[in-house]
């Protein structure tokens, strides 16, 4: 029983992280058919923004020293800012390009950001301590759950609910949903392309920042590569969730988190190091079974 509860919390918190990252990618894909490979680097950027720029092994907190009440909105706006900036500098000039060119340019942009971080902060992972008290375990239904896991799960729910509310209840949300379904038609009804796209990038960047804060607290490490792995998973989640479908991205994020935790728990010991290989094989199987995505109603037209 204890084990099961533990597994549940592990799966839900990992899945929540994946879901948030996947939402960030799906939002942008939805409005402009861009598969944004730079998303992982937005995450890394936000983590590094917490510390003083230097190549020393010991990290000195910069933004990270600010009280949470200030820190959280600050980092979220920083994430939004870098996403908006990248749209302005790169993707705005590629609106009429085909999705492949956009995808590759986002790959290039990610490469640029990653190497800029490497140049400024050095390649070695640094230990950072952001809200270390959150890693103290609390006992819930017989499982020792780090407080942070609970916070992650709660945050995910809050973020997803907040985003859903924003999309459902606000003018921008309505325009974004309309644009995600049929951008040209939305524009023919007077929806401004720039507003919607900038809005999507801002939200996506803020989501990356939320993921960054959670990862930094959870792992206690600032590493340039930390965005890459989660970006890959998130990217896969958006595809198996059905490209452009936000609920699909969330569901698939949780699904991958759960699959990953379950594989880790139930694979034979010898096979555990190869967990990701099994995970990605499952992904390929998923794609083969439902290329249009797991959570897309059968009536939906393929977008790509």
């Amino acid at each position: 029983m204890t084990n099961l509860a533990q597994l549940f919390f592990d799966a839900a918190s990992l899945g929540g992280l994946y879901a948030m990252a996947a939402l960030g990618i799906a939002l942008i894909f939805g409005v402009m058919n861009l598969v944004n490979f730079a998303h992982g680097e937005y995450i890394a950027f936000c983590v590094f923004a917490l510390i003083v720029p230097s190549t020393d092994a010991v990290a000195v907190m910069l933004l990270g020293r600010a009280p949470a009440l200030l820190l959280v909105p600050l980092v979220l706006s920083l994430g939004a800012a870098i996403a908006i900036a990248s749209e302005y500098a790169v993707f705005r000039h590629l609106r009429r390009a085909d999705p492949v060119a956009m995808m590759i340019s986002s790959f290039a942009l990610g490469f640029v950001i990653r190497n800029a971080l490497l140049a400024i902060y050095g390649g070695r992972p640094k230990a950072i301590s952001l809200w270390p008290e959150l890693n103290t375990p609390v006992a819930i239904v017989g499982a020792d759950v780090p407080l942070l896991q609970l916070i992650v799960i709660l945050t995910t729910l809050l973020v997803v609910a907040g985003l859903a509310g924003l999309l459902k209840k606000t003018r921008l949300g309505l325009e974004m949903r309309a644009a995600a379904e049929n951008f040209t038609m939305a524009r023919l009804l007077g929806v401004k392309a720039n507003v919607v796209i900038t809005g999507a990038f801002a939200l996506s960047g803020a989501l990356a920042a939320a993921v960054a804060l959670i990862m930094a607290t959870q792992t206690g490490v600032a590493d340039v590569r930390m965005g890459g792995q989660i970006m890959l998973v998130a990217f896969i989640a958006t595809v198996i969730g059905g490209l452009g479908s936000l609920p699909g991205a969330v569901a698939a994020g949780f699904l991958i988190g759960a699959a990953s935790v379950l594989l880790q728990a139930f694979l034979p010991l010898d096979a555990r190091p190869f967990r990701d290989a099994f995970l990605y094989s499952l992904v390929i199987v998923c794609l083969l079974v439902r290329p249009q995505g797991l959570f897309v109603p059968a009536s939906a037209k393929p977008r790509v």
Partner: protein
Amino acid sequence: MPSQHAQNRLAAYSTPLILSAVLLAFVLLVVVLDDKALARTAAEALVRVTLVVGLWIFVGNSGVISFGHAGYMAIGAYCSAWLTLKPQSKALFLPDLPPWLMDAQWPVFPAAIASGLLAALVALLSGAAILRLSGIAASIATFAFLAIVNTVYSNWEGVTGATSSVVGLARYVDHWVALAWATAAIVAANLYANSASGLALRATREDEVAARASGIDMYRHRLWSLVISAFFTGISGALLGHSIGVLNPDSFYLGITFISLAMLVVGGIGSLSGAVTGVLLLSLLIELLVRAERGITVGGAEFALPSGSQEILIGVAMIVVLILRPAGLTGGREFKLRLSVPRIPLSQEPTSTN
């Protein structure tokens, strides 16, 4: 008198001639300059030509972006290491190899061929599944494939050495060997592109629906091109290993995926000439920037770019090319010889061939 059609075909076959001549000129220049560091750079650039041309055989003809080719590269590189390393060092570093592989000590050339064949076989199997998909889903699946290969090679301690590097590969790949393979890849790519399968595949790239409607079996042609493509990509992996002498799974992950796609895209994804141009130009740019990072002395004053600016500038260059010339520098056109056979208007036949 050769018909217009035959002339076009001949002109199409002149492309590999021009490209090989350019590469040969490049190698001769390196030989004349007699600079050791330059020769090494040239060899690496030519290995990349093999890689990118290999990648182009699939991506250029099918229009499907593959993020998985670094996986085929890793498969080729490790295969060549298994076949050519001394049994004693294999016993030490890779103790779990099966006995027949442990004792194998092949000459380098058959080992390279075998590496290509293994990569091609894996491509046949993985492609049989992945190529059922199309568009972005297919690209994601290739990414998943890359992640699978990377996970396996990074953790299979007794067979791949996992994350500790495999060392001691014979460094036989100099600029001549690399030139020979690059030329072979270019010729094969051109032959494939002008074969019935290649032409059919490119028709699907232009218009998938119409091509399907006209009875083109897209799946078969895509699979076939992936197999050929993986063969040369696998060989390029083997060549890379035998050029630097050390293997590590992470050398065949996102970094090389990025750089090979960058070269392809900058040169122009639509043509073989674009693939080769992209490699040469970006290799040249990388070399210049690396040297600039080390410091250049101009009139007594030393300038050095901050380290890391090489990668940043390559990324920026790529974005700029994509914005200004989305079809790449060659715009999808091939370098061709203009045959000087005068065009005589055909008075009898209708001029249906253009």
